[in-house]
């Protein structure tokens, strides 16, 4: 199949998957919409869909729509943590390691970073950098547990990382509730971060879009270079494709598997830290934030390709913002996002989805190739005849 056809196929396939998900969403919105009769419900569904699909960028009124910069920057801000978890999952899944610890990782990273931001005074420029790095390192260390248990003892990294998520969450809640909470406040939250530690906002639209966004984009490029331009990245991808072969060809498989998860943990922790210092001024998460699961969806949408992560993250942030707006203006519960996400996820991951269409494209390409060869041969023969 030609490269152009491959691209076309991938795009069509993705579009169809998204369309199916939106169709499912429409049916669900219709069922849940307010209204007495069929036509009333239909109108409510239309309004809800309009909010969900156009709302993230445009302020909608009865008469028309106007572009809203605040909402666009909202989306960019929401992309920051999920770009990091998306990259983290990309790298771990590339090595065929189904480590689902990005969820606990981002919470631990956020927590450790917040602690440094509160209790360790430092100079203004250095503080956020050091805090985020220490947060990231702590998650990298956490990921050593599932990684080493996998390579040393063959314990499923998936089950282990899932259990770790719960343990991390409860321990953080324990520490926060008993030792670190600011008792003067009504809700459970830590003391305020020191002013020196905060990451400044990029533009002032009230969206809390911090400079962390640029760090996230830089991380995308670095991860892309790491995965496609270094021998470590090559080893990770090779092990994901064929572990036995990689071992046979002399790669240090165990070491690379451990490394992929440590790097993944580092990235997840970094996402948590930057999210904390860029958006909040106290730590008050009392449950897992869900960014880890979104990261898995992003990795699947991006096909484990780091460079496609920002696009997928934009898409997910857009949808999520749309669902929030829909919940506000059209009274459809915002958790619809989880169903849409799940459906898109399933169809993107389905290898045989639209395989008939792909088959047709392959056949077509092959036939064209044959026809061209025939033509070339005929030309040669003619040329030969003329010479003789």
């Amino acid at each position, binding site marked *: 199949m030609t490269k152009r056809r491959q691209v076309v196929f991938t795009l069509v396939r993705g579009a169809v998957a998204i369309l199916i998900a939106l169709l499912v969403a429409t049916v*669900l919105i219709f*069922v*849940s919409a307010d209204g007495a009769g069929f036509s009333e419900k239909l109108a409510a569904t239309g309004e809800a869909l309009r909010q969900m699909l156009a709302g993230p960028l445009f302020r909608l009124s009865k008469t028309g729509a106007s572009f809203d910069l605040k909402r666009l920057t909202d989306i960019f801000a929401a992309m920051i943590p999920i770009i990091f978890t998306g990259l983290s999952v990309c790298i771990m899944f590339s090595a065929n390691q*189904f480590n*689902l610890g990005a969820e606990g990782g981002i919470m631990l990273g956020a927590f450790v970073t917040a602690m440094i931001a509160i209790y360790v005074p430092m100079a203004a420029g250095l503080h956020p950098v050091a805090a985020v790095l220490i947060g990231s390192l702590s998650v990298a260390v956490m990921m050593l*547990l599932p990684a080493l*248990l996998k390579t040393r*003892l*063959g*314990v*499923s990294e*998936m*089950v*282990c990382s*899932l*259990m*770790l998520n*719960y*343990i991390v969450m*409860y*321990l953080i*809640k*324990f520490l926060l*509730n*008993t030792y670190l909470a600011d008792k003067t406040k009504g809700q459970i939250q830590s003391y305020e971060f020191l002013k020196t530690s905060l990451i400044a906002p990029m533009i002032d639209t009230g969206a809390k879009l911090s400079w962390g966004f640029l760090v996230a984009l830089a991380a995308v490029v670095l991860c892309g270079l790491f995965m496609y331009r270094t021998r470590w990245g090559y080893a990770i991808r090779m092990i994901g494709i064929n572990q036995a072969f990689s071992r046979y060809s002399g790669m240090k498989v165990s070491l690379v598997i451990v490394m992929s998860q440590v790097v993944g943990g580092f990235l997840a922790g970094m996402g948590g830290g930057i999210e904390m210092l860029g958006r909040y001024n106290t730590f008050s998460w009392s449950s897992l934030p869900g960014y880890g*699961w979104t990261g*898995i*969806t992003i990795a*699947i949408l991006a096909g484990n390709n780091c460079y496609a992560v920002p696009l997928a993250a934009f898409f997910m942030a857009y949808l999520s913002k749309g669902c929030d707006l829909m*919940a506000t203006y059209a*009274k459809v*519960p*915002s*958790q*619809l*996002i*989880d*169903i849409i*996400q*799940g*459906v898109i*996820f*399933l*169809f993107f*991951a*389905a*290898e*045989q*989805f639209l395989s008939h269409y792909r088959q047709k494209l392959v056949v077509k390409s092959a036939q064209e190739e044959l026809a061209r060869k025939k033509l070339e041969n005929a030309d040669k023969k003619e040329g030969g005849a003329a010479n003789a």
Partner: protein
Amino acid sequence: MLNFLKLLLTPEFFFSILRISAPILFATLGAIIVEKAGFCNIGLEGIMMFSALAGSMVSYYTGSWLLGLLGALLMGTLLGFVMGFFAFQLKTDITLVGIAVNMMGSGGTLFLCKVITNLTEGKAMASTTGLITSGLCIPNITIPLISKIPFLGGVLSGHSLLTYLAFLICGLTSVILYKTSLGLNIRAVGENPNAASSVGVSVLKIKYVAIMYSGLMAGFGGAFMSMSYAQGWSQDMVAGRGFIALAAQAMGSGECLGGMLSSLVFGFAQALGIKFSAIGLDSNLASPIPYAVTIIGLVIFALSRRSRDKKQRLTAKK
């Protein structure tokens, strides 16, 4: 310490172990049957969430716990079928299908709950606990003779119908796997699908049967959670039991009896955690105990398997 032991050695404590183990055991059976068929169903957690919601919804709207239970079982089996469709027909990686089901299970159930019951968006934690009365829960059964036995009666009698079913179905699953042709086919497909298909077994059909059975078991587990363990459904109520079941399956080396014992170990860990928090341990320290025990259990299991393999290799050399 002695006082604490006294607190533990009561019929109520052992009763609670059995009660807590039951949903884990159901899910473990669901994990075992697909393991025998050669794959891993990590969607158990999500299926349990959906079934728990279905059970509590159906029982509320029909006014019958039996119909509610059937609704939960139907939901579980149906989700098993859908997972099978994506995994076997559309060739999606079964792990990813499971992740997708879990994703939908946590937020999607809340969505459905809000839509069906019209509970307002304002409530952050929607649940059906307000709707369900004890009459809509699965009844507890007092066993006539055994309940009279001093200590044992308190441990064994008075459980929910589903707790007894869990242990009965555990035996039944073992019989299905080892004494019926269906079980033989399932194991054959898991061991070597090509060999199985060469003697005329429909691999696809057997895989479907296995994953739907797995869904059915998760359906039982979900029904137990919302109709017996708690009164009504609430968000994230399954709380990782589907994942713990995967660990229980591995620790029980994929056999029903072993799976049952490991489920009991987890039940013990959780019951212990509850007791600890009763005597004043912070609940945030008591809650992670079952999850930590899962990891420790997996490590111990892996270590013992490794030393056993070593011994076998040594004896083989001699």
